[in-house]
């Protein structure tokens, strides 16, 4: 009996790009105080997918090889990004370089249209997604929460569409829950991941309660005072939110409804 009860408290696994995962939390590897803290946060988060990047290597410098070796040892699926690209052509070139270095078709596609809030460029993003899906990449497309844009990305064959909760690194939480709820309702069969802008575990729980498949975050954990503890908090919040979605929430009522049965109520001698 105890075993069955324990199984029922685990959220259902999810699938993306033909693979199955138990954790619905994808984690970034940047901005941690140290590689050791990052490793501890990764372990505490329970994540199975880590994001990474490529940058220029100066001649004669050791550069990022050491941190990559550290990340590779953590045993997670690697999701390389195209952060910093501003055009489809840049993103396609960087994607090809990522595929060679990381030996994966997985790609978190980012094409920035505005440097002030790192807002994705919908036009370049769509063109990049069109080319990359045609080249066999498994594209996780980082997008705004625009319904039409996300629909087009789904139609192009992106394995996951990842609308922002708020601009990258802001920690604001969901600036437009209605838009996200609409996305979930209108794209019921798409893999939807909220990526960026989350600051607290409650934000992640809110995402999962909306029925999103997963969340992707980085700064909220990396820049917490205690990243491993915050990672653990997000792990539990993601699971809690998903369980709530799977359980099906109660209907909201405009008026109070007594939870304790009223039949047999003492001291009711007269109508009030």
């Amino acid at each position, binding site marked *: 009996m105890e075993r069955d009860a324990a199984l029922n408290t685990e959220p259902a696994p999810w699938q993306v790009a033909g693979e199955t995962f138990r954790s619905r939390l994808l984690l970034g590897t940047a901005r941690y105080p140290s590689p050791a803290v990052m490793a501890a946060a990764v372990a505490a988060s329970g994540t199975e997918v880590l994001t990474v990047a490529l*940058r220029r290597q100066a001649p004669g410098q050791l550069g990022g090889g050491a941190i990559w070796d550290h990340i590779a040892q953590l045993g997670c699926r690697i999701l390389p990004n195209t952060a910093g690209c501003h055009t489809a052509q840049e993103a396609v070139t960087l994607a090809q370089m990522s595929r060679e270095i990381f030996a994966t078709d997985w790609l978190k596609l980012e094409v920035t249209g505005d440097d002030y809030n790192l807002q994705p460029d919908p036009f370049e993003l769509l063109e990049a997604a069109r080319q990359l899906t045609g080249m066999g990449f498994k594209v996780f497309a980082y997008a705004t929460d625009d319904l039409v844009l996300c629909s087009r990305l789904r139609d192009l064959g992106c394995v996951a569409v990842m609308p922002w909760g708020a601009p990258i690194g802001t920690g604001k939480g969901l600036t437009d829950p209605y838009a996200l709820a609409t996305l979930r309702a209108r794209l019921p069969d798409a893999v939807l991941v909220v990526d960026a802008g989350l600051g607290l575990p409650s934000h992640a729980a809110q995402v999962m309660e909306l029925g999103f498949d997963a969340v992707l975050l980085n700064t909220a954990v990396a820049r917490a005072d205690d990243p491993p503890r915050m990672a653990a908090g997000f792990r539990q919040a993601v699971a809690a939110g998903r369980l709530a979605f799977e359980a099906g929430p109660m209907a909201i009522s405009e008026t109070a409804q007594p939870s304790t049965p009223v039949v047999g109520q003492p001291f009711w001698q007269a109508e009030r």
Partner: protein
Amino acid sequence: MEILVNGEPVSLDVDLLADAVAALGFAERQVAIAVNEAFVAKAEWQSFRLQAQDRLDVLTPIEGG
């Protein structure tokens, strides 16, 4: 000939990209290369001929969000 490596001018006495990679000290490192913003797969380095003023981007893995 002079080429640009990650934005910096470098003079090299080589013709092939593979030789440039070795001369720059990248041969044993995990890098990916684009020449003039176009990806050049590692399998092509031995046959890819560089021209003066070519722009090389030599990238290596780092942390990312």
